């Protein structure tokens, strides 16, 4: 894994407060990037293999245990930003051969069906909208949460694992020309709901 040619890391990462973390642990940063991003890219035919989701949960855990609980919010933001960038690249690859999208609902249906199938090997179970820019995507068996026990024990930790996927959706939508805010909530494992709020410019 090469480091960037001029030694500086991309400005988006530096602005998000990565710089001090990077300065102290260059090797650590590279090992964080390799499992999540490279293994998602490796499925160049469009199919992210099952191993990529397990790699992601490993590094989510490794990443969050390094920081104290008080910096949990910053961790989640960083994970979401990473998901954003990955989502942009993924959407470019997946929409290469699809027809042009007619409207917003068409784009959301694409995210629910093709995008989710290619990344998580299943479709979104339920899509609801109020036709005023709010969409709720419900997944009853979210792949990143199936490995955790289906009770109340890990409910508060589940949001860490959803942050990357929220960024993924937000990045994909932004590349298709839709600015949005994506949040996730878990009421009972392993089901989760992603709420997408479209921001009209």
């Amino acid at each position, binding site marked *: 894994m090469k480091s*960037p040619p001029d030694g500086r890391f991309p400005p988006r990462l530096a602005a998000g407060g990565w710089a001090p973390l990077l300065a102290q642990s260059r090797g650590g940063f590279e090992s964080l*990037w390799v499992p999540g991003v490279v293994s998602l890219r490796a499925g160049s035919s469009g199919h992210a293999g099952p191993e990529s989701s397990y790699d992601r949960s490993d590094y989510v855990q490794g990443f969050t245990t390094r920081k104290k609980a008080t910096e949990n919010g910053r961790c989640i933001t960083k994970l979401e930003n990473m998901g954003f960038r990955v989502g942009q690249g993924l*959407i*470019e690859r997946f929409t*290469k051969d699809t*027809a042009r999208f007619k409207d917003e609902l068409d784009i959301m249906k694409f995210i629910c069906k093709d995008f989710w199938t290619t990344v998580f090997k299943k479709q979104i179970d339920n899509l609801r909208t109020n036709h005023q820019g709010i969409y709720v995507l419900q997944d009853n068996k979210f792949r990143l949460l199936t490995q955790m026990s289906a009770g109340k024990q890990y409910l508060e930790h589940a949001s860490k694992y959803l942050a990357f996927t929220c960024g993924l959706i937000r990045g994909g939508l932004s*590349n*298709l*020309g839709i600015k949005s805010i994506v949040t996730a909530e878990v009421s009972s494992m392993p089901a989760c709901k992603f709420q997408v709020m479209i921001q009209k410019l």
Partner: protein
Amino acid sequence: MAVCVAVIAKENYPLYIRSVPTENELKFHYMVHTSLDVVDEKISAMGKALVDQRELYLGLLYPTEDYKLRRYGYVTNSKVKFVMVVDSSNTALRDNEIRSMFRKLHNSYTDVMCNPFYNPGDRIQSRAFDGMVTSMMIQVC
């Protein structure tokens, strides 16, 4: 063989523009700039046009009196536009060849997008992309 290839971002500024270094390149830059209006018009008229509005390839943008240089357009789903100026004096290029050239461009652009060290919105500086465009450009002897 292409004479000028340009990749324009969603916000209508060039991410990559390269032309055959013969006369003033400014002429090609100007041509690409004027074609942007035509591209926008074609996309917005999609709903009413009889043409298959689900396609990404736009075809010949507009007829000019200068029959040698033709401009072709292609818009991706992420609103990134590719404009190509082609010199058709040597060989009559068929539609399929132009489509395959745009396909290659789109594939290389996707690879650039997935590069984690590339920030979307920056100028494209990838050597692989340059190599692919060189293979498409006219051989100036």
